[in-house]
Structures are given as structure tokens and as C-alpha cells.
């Protein structure tokens, strides 16, 4: 778990650095941010791709897909 701690620290540092560069964006300035392609969650069309990653790769989660349910044994 030592490697995990280092990775967490690195990601946390990136987030802190990123957040420090934030500017307040008004609602009328969000035309780009509100574009359908900018949506932060995975899109519906990716739904089944996520299911097959879940079954074909042992590392599930943090990807918008489900983290349990279904055996995935086939």
C-alpha cells in the first residue's frame, strides 16, 4: 500500500494545483462547458463497453460502471 499512498499524494497535489487555477465561470459563460460532448460522466453509448471491461479486466470501478452484481463468468 506504500505505492498507493504515493499515487494518492500525487493526484491530490494535481487537484490542489488545478483548483488553485480556477476562475468563477458565470452561467452565461458555460456554453462550452454545457456542450453534450463535455459531459463528465460516461455517455450512454459507452455503457456496454464499460460492462465488458468490467468482465474482461479484473480492475473494476471509478469508471462510471457498476462495481458489483452479475457474475461476469462467461
Amino acid at each position, binding site marked *: *500500500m506504500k*505505492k*498507493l499512498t504515493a*499515487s*494518492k499524494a500525487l*493526484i491530490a497535489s*494535481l*487537484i490542489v494545483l*488545478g*483548483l488553485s*487555477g*480556477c*476562475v*468563477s*465561470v*458565470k*452561467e452565461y*459563460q*458555460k456554453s*462550452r*462547458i454545457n*456542450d*453534450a*460532448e*463535455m459531459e*463528465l460522466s460516461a455517455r*450512454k*453509448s*459507452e*455503457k*456496454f*463497453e464499460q*460492462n*465488458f*471491461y468490467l*468482465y*474482461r*479486466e*479484473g*480492475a*473494476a*470501478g*471509478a*469508471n462510471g460502471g*457498476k*462495481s*458489483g*452484481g*452479475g*457474475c*461476469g*463468468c*462467461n
Partner: protein
Amino acid sequence: MKKICLSVSVLLGLLRAGYGQSVTPPAYETRKLKLEEINLVSSYYQQDGNNSAVTGGIGTEHLTDFAQSIDLVLKTTDRKNRQHTLAFDFNIDHYTSASSDNIDPLTVSSASRSDTHIYPSVAWSVHNDDRRTTQGVALSYSTEYDYKSYGLNLSFAKASADNNREISLKAGAFFDTWKVILPPELRPEGYGSGAHGDRDPIDYKPRNSYNVSLSLSQIINKRLQVLLTVEPAFQQGLLSTPFHRIYFQDGGETVERLPGNRLKLPIGFRLHYFLGDRIVVRTFYRYYIDDWGMQAHTVNLETPIKLTSFVSASPFYRFSHQSAVRYFAPYGQHKQTDQYYTSDYDISGFNSQFLGLGIRLAPPGGLFGTGHWQSVELRYGHYIRSTGMVANSITFLAKLK
């Protein structure tokens, strides 16, 4: 006269009361539950390889899966001006699996040679604009021939005053039951096959999964936004697959055996950037670690390009690397003295790549002049794994509003 005066007074009083009621505007506006969106998704997936877990790490992994999904989103606003969203999701997969067909190769009667997997869910969420909060609950169910699952998810999200930042917390639990179907040569005397009509008993075992997801999204500027997700998960119960065979170095045979619990920690980071007027850059990185000894890194890059105002093309590429769990060994390499063993290549060490293209049409007036049919999307992907497995998937999405 007294009676007349009294009657007039009462009538005037009633009229006044009635007048008062009719001029006071209602404190809320009644809005009916309205169908907001329908998504139809069809998908075809096919794979080939030669490391089937059911035959101990060798043999065909051929699999085809035809999946259909429909989800309906309904919305309404209540007396306190809170927005309620009700989402119904119904999914059905029909698959044929040569690997599972080899559970019982002599009779070709294995339960999963061809099976249907059905998994509906219903979700309800309430968004309060004044408090900038969203609360939700979802129930799910999943059934296959040898597996049943019940799921419960709770969620809470709160946005900042300028709506540029949101923190969300989700908690989920899945309560599953396995039908313990064993390969015929490894069934104890009197143990059933699990097939229809076989009255010999078989075991049923639980597998429960619990996960918590903490997400933070932030708009950095007018073109850039990020999301961080940490999603610890814990599983307990029968985590091995009962019909996966294991072959030892000395030629002995048994079924897969894995620990009864597993703790996973995935961390995901998304960064989406709108470059110029036509290109969106969607990036994703995920780090994963668990207590079975697996570590994984996944990167994903997708760049939707707006060819015209209503046509976009999205090339995508995904690379993933994972290390094997410490209980993995290929066919014939486990020792009888090992405590746990698996030859399932899905939890072995490998690199994988997935690349493809999506095309999306979303004309402003709807497709074919129908305002309701808002968009269609076609997506093709090719998957290559360093173990030799290859797969192709094609997905079609239609969105109606």
C-alpha cells in the same frame, strides 16, 4: 327581520371568504410527471481467444453477446419547486459462450451455452435548486441462469453557490446468489448438475459487494473541467467461479479457489477540454489496487470533432495495464500445496488496447424532420489483449426527447 339580517350577514361573510380565497394566488404550480427522454441502445459484442478459464486456462474463449437497453427519464416539479427525476432502465443480453459450454463437454448441456441476462433498474432523485442538492435512491435486479443479484444505491450531491463545483457521495450494495454448478468429473456423489429437470440438489452461495464512491467535479475555466472519483469496494462470499477448472503440475484437477473477500481501491481522474470551436478533448486516467495483489493503470483519450454543427466524429483510444493477482498461474502450473488458485486470464497480468470511432448526428430540428428524435450515435471498437484475445463491439444509440 333579525333572521333576514343574520342571513345576509352570513352570506356576505361567506362571499367575502370565497372572494378572499379566489384572489390569493396558489403557492405552487402543479406540473404533471412528464416523459423527458428515451434512450435506446443496441450493442453487439464478439470475442475470440484461447485461454478459457472453464478448461483451466486453455481452449476457446469464443463469445457473442447481443444486448438491448431502453431507459426512460420522467421529470416533475413538486410544491416546493424541487425537481423529481424518475429513471427506468431495462437491459437484456442474449449471449452464446463456447467457454461456458465446456462445463460439461460430454453432454453439451451446460447451463450457459446460450443464456439470457436480464437486468432492470429504477432510480429516483430529487434536486433542490435552493439548496443546490440532489438526493437519490436506486434499486436494481439482475438474473441469469445460475446467478441472481439485488442492488441498492443511495446518492447525495451538493453544488457550490456558483455551480462550478460539485461534491457527490454514493453508496451501493449488491446481494447476489450463485448456483454452484460444478464440472461433471468433479461433482460429489449425488450432487446435481444444475440443469432443468435434475432433482439432485446443488449448493447456493452468496456473493455480496459494497462500494462507496466519492466524487469532486470542478469547472476550472470556460473550457476546462475535471472530475476526481475515489471508489473503494469490498466483496465477500463466493468470489471464485465454481465451474472454472484448475489443473495442477502433477496432473490433478480441481475447481478454482479464491479468498472469500476482496478489497478494491480504484481512483479515477477525468479532464475534459473544449479546444477551439470544433474539438473536445476527453481524457481519463484510472489507478487501481486491491488486496489480491493486482494493480492497474488505464488511460483513455477521446476527441469528438464537430465536422458540422450537427455531425461529430469521435476517435478514441484506451490503454490498460494490469498485474496478475497472486493466485494466478497458467494451465498445469499450480501446485497442490497452493492455498488458492485460478487460471482465469481476466485476472492475469496483461496489457490491453481498445480503439475505434463513434459518429454522432444531432440536427437542431431532430432527425428526419421529427423534433422528438434528437440524435443517433454509432460506435465501433476493436479490443486487443496481450494474452491473444481479440474482441469487436458495435453500439447504436438513439435518443428521443
